[in-house]
């Protein structure tokens, strides 16, 4: 069906569509030429807008897909591979699957922290329930600039409140997350939201469309002018002009989302839903094109039938609007009434806006007039969307990293370092944030009364639980992107293992600077390589995720490369859940894993000593794997009372965090063969602190000696406190707990 004459004359703005128009919409010259080739004519403004959002980085992954394809995607548990569906889908046994994903809302949150973060939470949850899965747990990963600055405080308060207000009302517990501060995030904070849901394997809904004549419905909220060109906005640097893009930030309504959740799950359960996709980035055009391309069909859509919030919306505005809490649903013809009744029950819009055709093209009409005619497949990733190989080169700063010489660092005042670390905003208690999130709704959260390294949530109706965490230390990745990213995967896996789970898959949120900068792209490529190596080691395929480029300011350079890893782990028996807290005095404390002289990129070196560039911490993936197996076996054999991994701040912080929950103390010996600052504060990887009751000591040590092929040490004992004793002397004591607990509320409360 050709309609070029109709479509080129339908809008006043068509008068002179030139490359200049395309450029204003963020398209490159080669892309404009390609669009003309695909259509066989000059696009009209509506069509040009369609291509500009669908070919934006946010939707097309055009600058990243070449490398994303190299990530490991296979495992016997995978039910949907990366990019196939709205979120990853992993078999967890018993006829159930877990759908999980992480997504960024960095740029909206930089301008309007409350709505930016809130709609990030809304968007990621829609990705989960559009697959038929009921979300059961959420996490978030946040990065901000200097916590002492007023702008940072405004951002932190707004983002935390936005996440809380949306997630709390929506009714899915937020069970953990990450929060770091560094000057590199001053202009461009990172706000990544993660959600996981459970679905019966045979009730999974797909983002597809087929069956000529099947009706196409839009359900949920009405469409307004908010968020137009949000996807394009996410695909450029933040600069002085960005505040003018405020209408590109969407507004969230968690109550509508809750209704949409219940109605969507009821609709999918009828079996009459052919395909369904939420409206995220690029709104209607994204859903119609991706579903049609997947199902190898076309659609006719009548844009004037779309319920709108404002009068006189133009066709391209309706197509590109990123109004929240909407879904596109293709229904098996003849069952419209059953589906409509469900949306009526929940008082939601359910409007017929089109039908499936056999053309493999999208025909958009407004009041009977054809306003756009585009081939679906040419718009989407994996179809005709552009794919670029970007050049990359190692940045100069890595030479400075390599020049770091720890032997020139003298031994510090250990008590002073301990105080610095335990009251540092990157390490101190997250209590001020955590209490603003409902972590208990759903009555499945095992980590409320027994905190552990990962959040652990029951799969209701079974003995299983999922263990989830988000991890990335951008400082490590900046120092060495390949190794730093491998560390992020290793630490996430370690957190799952210490909680009693088995790592099974990851999702990733790749936050980087401008991909057209070869040094930034080198960081990206290196990170992908490191992630690949580590994921292969742990058998955790990448189920999907999100790429967020352009995280930088026009004047301040790029953020630390921050490839946040969202790890999904499984506890086949929730009784294996293991906490991080020491249980009682006289229990023995062991360190599993290697003690090294490494202090590189530690919080100690970075902020206490003020050395901004140093090598990434020690990591040996084989040793890491072995340590995790020993921890896992020790939990399953019932040897240990607690397990807590050594991460930010090093061993002393780990011990303190294990001692604080029950107001206990400890007495440990350092290793004379290891430099003492590295032993206490180094962030070398693959270490776990476990505690063992005296009655289990013999069995546990027998196991370590005879079966565990890892370095280990008996560190000391848990005491009734309050002193934290190192080598016979009180270093600090439990009175630090109050300072540790209140750092964030003093800054932001």
């Amino acid at each position, binding site marked *: 069906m050709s309609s070029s004459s109709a479509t080129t004359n339908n809008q006043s703005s068509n008068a002179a569509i030139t490359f200049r128009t395309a450029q204003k919409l963020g398209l490159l010259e080669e892309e404009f030429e390609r669009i003309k080739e695909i259509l066989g004519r000059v696009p009209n403004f509506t069509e040009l807008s369609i291509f500009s959002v669908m070919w934006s980085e946010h939707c097309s992954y055009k600058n990243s897909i070449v490398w994303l394809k190299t990530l490991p995607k296979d495992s016997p548990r995978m039910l949907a591979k990366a990019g196939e569906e709205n979120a990853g889908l992993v078999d967890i046994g018993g006829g159930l699957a877990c759908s999980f994903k992480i997504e960024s809302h960095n740029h909206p949150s930089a301008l309007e922290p409350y709505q930016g973060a809130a709609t990030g939470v809304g968007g990621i949850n829609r990705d989960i329930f559009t697959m038929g899965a009921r979300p059961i747990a959420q996490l978030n990963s946040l990065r901000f600039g200097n916590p002492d600055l007023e702008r940072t405080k405004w951002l932190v308060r707004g983002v935390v409140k936005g996440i809380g207000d949306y997630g*709390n009302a929506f009714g899915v517990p937020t069970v953990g997350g990450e929060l770091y501060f560094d000057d590199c995030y001053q202009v461009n904070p990172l706000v990544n939201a993660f959600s996981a849901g459970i679905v019966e394997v045979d009730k999974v809904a797909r983002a597809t469309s087929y069956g000529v004549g099947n009706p196409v419905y839009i359900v949920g909220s009405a469409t307004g002018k908010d968020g137009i060109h949000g996807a394009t906005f996410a695909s450029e640097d933040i600069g002085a002009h960005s505040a003018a893009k405020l209408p590109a930030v969407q507004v969230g309504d968690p109550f509508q989302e809750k209704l949409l959740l219940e109605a969507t799950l009821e609709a999918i359960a009828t079996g009459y839903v052919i395909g369904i996709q939420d409206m995220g980035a690029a709104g209607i055009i994204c859903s119609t094109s991706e579903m049609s391309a997947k199902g190898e069909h076309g659609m006719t859509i009548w844009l004037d039938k779309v319920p709108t919030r404002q009068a006189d919306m133009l066709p391209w505005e309706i197509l590109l609007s990123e109004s929240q809490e909407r879904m596109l649903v293709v229904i098996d013809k003849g069952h419209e009434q059953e589906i409509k009744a469900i949306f009526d029950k929940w008082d939601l819009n359910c409007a017929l806006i089109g039908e499936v055709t056999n053309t493999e093209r999208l025909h958009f009409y407004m009041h009977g007039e054809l306003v756009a005619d585009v081939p679906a497949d040419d718009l989407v990733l994996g179809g005709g969307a552009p794919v670029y190989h970007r050049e990359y080169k190692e940045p100069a700063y890595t030479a400075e990293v390599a020049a770091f010489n720890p032997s020139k660092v003298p031994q510090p005042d250990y008590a002073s370092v301990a105080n610095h670390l335990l009251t540092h905003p990157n390490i101190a208690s997250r209590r001020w944030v955590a*209490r603003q999130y409902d972590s208990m709704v759903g*009555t499945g959260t095992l980590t409320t009364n027994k905190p552990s390294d990962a959040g652990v949530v029951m799969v209701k109706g079974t003995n299983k639980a999922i263990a989830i965490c988000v991890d990335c230390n951008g400082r490590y990745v900046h120092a060495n992107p390949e190794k730093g990213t491998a560390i992020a995967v290793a630490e996430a896996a370690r957190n799952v293992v210490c909680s009693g789970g088995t790592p099974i898959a990851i999702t990733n949120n790749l936050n980087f600077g401008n991909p057209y900068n070869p040094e930034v792209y080198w960081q990206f490529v290196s990170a992908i390589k490191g992630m690949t190596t580590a994921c292969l080691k742990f058998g955790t395929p990448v189920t999907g995720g999100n790429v967020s480029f352009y995280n930088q300011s026009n004047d301040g350079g790029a953020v630390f490369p921050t490839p946040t890893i969202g790890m999904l782990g499984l506890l086949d028996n929730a009784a294996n859940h293991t906490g991080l807290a020491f249980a009682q005095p006289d229990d023995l404390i062991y360190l599993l894993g290697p003690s090294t002289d490494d202090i590189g990129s530690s919080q100690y070196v970075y902020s206490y000593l003020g050395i901004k560039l140093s090598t990434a911490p020690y990591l040996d993936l084989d040793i890491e794997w072995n340590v995790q197996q020993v921890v896992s076996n020790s939990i399953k054999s019932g040897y240990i009372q607690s397990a807590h991994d050594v991460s930010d701040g090093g061993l002393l912080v780990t011990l303190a965090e294990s001692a604080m929950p029950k107001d206990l103390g400890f007495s440990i010996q350092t290793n004379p063969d290891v430099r003492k600052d590295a032993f206490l504060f180094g962030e070398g990887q693959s270490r776990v602190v476990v505690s063992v009751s005296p009655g289990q000591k013999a069995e546990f040590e027998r196991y370590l000696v005879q079966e565990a092929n890892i370095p280990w040490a008996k560190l000391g004992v848990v005491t009734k406190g309050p002193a934290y004793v190192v080598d016979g002397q009180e270093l600090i004591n439990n009175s630090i707990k109050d300072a540790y607990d209140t750092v964030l509320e003093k800054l932001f409360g």
Partner: protein
Amino acid sequence: MAKFGVVVFPGSNCDEDMVLALRSVAPEAEGHQVIKLWHKDHDLQGVDVVILPGGFSYGDYLRSGAIARFSPIMTEVINFANKGGHVMGVCNGFQILAEAGLVPGALLHNTGRSFICRNVNVTATTTNSPFSAEAVPGQAYTIPIAHGEGRFFINADGLKSLQDNDQIIYQYCDATGQVTDDANPNGSVYNIAGVSNKAGNVFGMMPHPERAASALLGNTDGFVVLKGLLMGVGV
């Protein structure tokens, strides 16, 4: 044998948690029933006890519970309560009861202005209520709160009336059961965590007993409220 009805408003999100917790204290195997009641209905289906669960009833963009009180089911709940039927509201359910005038007082924004989710301790101020009949006087029970608008407010005359009529059922306390200012998480008048109406058949509390009703989750202190309810309603 008791039949419990848990009201589902469109934005309720603790309804399922409440149903599961009630079923654990009132199992079907023993002849009890726990059903859900839909906000658009006018039929209470013969329940003995109505529970208004936590959540955000109709979004709560106005005041929490301000719209829910006008829903069809609430017309019936109000009639039921006025005839002496037992009604319990938890969190948003408490807010709805207060908006409907079924219990005295109002729930205002927490003094800190922030949403607070954490374990707190409560102690029974009286055991002359079916909602606290199982409690040991002076003992602290750990039951979590999760709310932004949970600061119980009533004027001095109202407070005196509550005291005179033994309507203060639970108060926030420390781990040893002492009712102290430090133990007050949200600025509630007189540390009030739960109150009843004058007749004693309608009760609202901000803490969530259904979140403290599972050995697996490491806390069963909420049973003191739920079991008391089962015993105390005398059905």
